[in-house]
């Protein structure tokens, strides 16, 4: 078991579009202070912002967690529902169930989940209808 250098939990509220992105901005700042390389920092930042927006747009709220070990950065998003009925469809580029508010802000193009998967070295998503969705993303540091 690797030693944990940093662990932070960021509660993210549903439909709080004003604060959406604050957790990701803080995550980026903390990783920069730890000296994470620019390439990894950029991939973590994009994936983190996408997953945070997903919590705001699609979930009933949840928690975005950051964990850093000497080997990797781990981002875990765990929400309180409603869960994704068809994961295969949700992972497809261009598929979106975002509402008009999200679209008017420039989101909801159906790129979020595929973009997270593309940016992370390790990607895992589990979802149960009525219970919630958990997304784990790992970014290797070496």
């Amino acid at each position: 078991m690797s030693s944990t250098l940093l662990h932070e939990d960021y509660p993210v509220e549903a439909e709080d579009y004003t604060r959406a992105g604050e957790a990701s901005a803080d995550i980026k700042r903390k990783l920069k202070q730890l000296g994470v390389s620019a390439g990894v920092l950029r991939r973590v930042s994009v994936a983190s912002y996408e997953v945070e927006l997903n919590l705001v747009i699609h979930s009933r709220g949840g928690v975005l967690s950051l964990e850093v070990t000497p080997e990797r950065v781990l981002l875990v998003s765990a929400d309180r529902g409603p869960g994704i009925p068809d994961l295969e469809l949700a992972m497809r580029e261009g598929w979106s169930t975002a509402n008009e508010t999200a679209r008017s802000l420039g989101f909801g193009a159906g790129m979020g989940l595929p973009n997270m998967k593309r940016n992370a070295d390790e990607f895992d998503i589990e979802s149960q209808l009525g219970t919630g969705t958990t997304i784990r993303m790992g970014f290797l540091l070496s």
Partner: protein
Amino acid sequence: MTIADMIRVLRAKVLCGEDRLETMVYTACCSDLMSDVLAFVNEKTVLITGLTNPHVLRTADMLDLKCLVYARGKIPGEEILDQAREQGLVVITTRETAFTACGLLYEAGLRGVPIEWPESEARL
């Protein structure tokens, strides 16, 4: 070209970041869809947009963009400019439409940011 060159080409006004106008820029992208910008932009570049909400700033922060160009004379709120100052981002506004702004910058030598095609569109 430098950001100062872009300002001349677009007859633009600087809204913040006056101390960074000599920064070199080689590529740009133009979009109001932040999902697309987040998905396809892979380098520190310039974003031309008509969208003035705070998420444009957040997107710029996540991608370390160099300069934000508001088309059609749009000017964001002061709180957005404060955020841009904090991020060290240059923000300018031009009276040109997004289409014309892109055309003028292309003519002056700026090129589109290289993008990675998503698998679903690679065959186009």
